């Protein structure tokens, strides 16, 4: 089964496959597939292997190894240096830690209008509309995508690094936020 998974993941490349997808393709139970994935993972950890198994955005994918990056850089034509801007990162962080969240709420935290950044992030498919809030006007709510998780090398949203020093009393902060909004209306 390991070999089949390896082949499947090779074909799927950057799309990868979820655990459930693997189960249905292989017609096997989750535990069996997970076990095979674990074995495959440790096989790849050996020094004589050039690829590794990673969970990125809920999908298992085969990637190259970090320690060989110097060699890959030589064959990539363009530098992948288009890093996200500070404002994009900031907005992403706010969305990731608070999803679902409306643009107004994002603006509130950042203190600036975020329409442009949000549009850019939507185009890059790092965030998506996930629904509408019950607030007046039923504004759109945004959340992060699997592509976002992949972009930061995360398996799932729970792997997001913990926010340092969260406010001591978040209740009061909520109260403030709602009151502030009323004032703004």
């Amino acid at each position, binding site marked *: 089964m390991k070999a089949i998974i390896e082949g499947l993941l090779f074909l799927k490349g950057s799309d990868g496959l979820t655990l459930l997808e693997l189960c249905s393709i292989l017609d096997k139970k989750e535990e069996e597939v997970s076990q095979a994935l674990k074995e495959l993972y440790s096989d790849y950890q050996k020094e004589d292997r050039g690829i590794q198994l990673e969970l990125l955005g809920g999908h298992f994918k085969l990637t190259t190894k970090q320690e060989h990056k110097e060699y890959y850089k030589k064959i990539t034509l363009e530098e992948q240096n288009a890093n996200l801007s500070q404002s994009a990162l900031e907005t992403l962080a706010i969305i990731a830690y608070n999803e679902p969240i409306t643009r107004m709420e994002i603006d509130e*935290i950042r203190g600036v209008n975020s329409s442009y950044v949000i549009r850019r992030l939507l185009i890059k498919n790092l965030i998506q509309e996930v629904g509408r809030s019950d607030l007046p006007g039923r504004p759109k709510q945004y959340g992060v995508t699997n592509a976002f998780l*992949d972009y930061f090398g995360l398996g799932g949203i729970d792997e997001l690094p913990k926010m*340092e020093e969260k406010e001591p009393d978040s209740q009061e902060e909520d109260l403030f936020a709602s009151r502030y909004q009323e004032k703004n209306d």
Partner: protein
Amino acid sequence: MEYKVSLPSYDGPLDLLLHLIKQSNINICDISIVEITRQYLDYIEKMEEMNLDIASEYLVMAAELVEIKSRVLLPRQEEEEEEEDPREQLIQRLLEYQNYKESTKSLKKLEHLRKEVYTKEPSDLLDFQDSNTPMDYGVTLEDLLEAFQKFLDSKEFQKPLNTKITHQEYSIGKRCTEIRDIIRAKKQVSFQDLFEEVTKEYVVVTFLAILNMSKRQEISIEQSRNFDNIVIKEKSDKI
């Protein structure tokens, strides 16, 4: 207090405030509203001097700062004794914003790390599907064309018979040519006969066409007696 004016590095008023606070080496919770307001307004002024457009958000924050400052400075009345520190809201906001700003550092690290591993594009599996489906059934290009033509024909039949309600547009120029043709063929025509249709547009356009042609001396309009038929003829000298 000296500061460098390097504007692009600020992502909004909160970012600027955090920067000013950091510069003065004080804890966010201990900020002096009077001092920070002065610095903030100084900065806004500098921006103005440099002829930079100040985003409205900066001005909103300036107004908020001045408001907080005024509340701090005004002597408190007794009923208001229990009111919370006017700086509280601003401090909370700054702390919250700072938290997110901090978290972008770890995101940046992750972004960088992720860029160091590569994945390959998913394979195009369509190629494999095709090899399993036999293509040669002895079908020629003509067969295909014929089939396509049949399909188009059947499409034609499927069309509802009357699909559009058209609104015919009349143009004076077009009507002129028509009248010219009639006169050329019949030599003369009675005025009434030119009004074959009785829709408002048709009548108006025809009448205008006749007026136009007569103005250009293309036709002569004759009437032998009052209330007699008006006859339209080609101007003889035009030929």
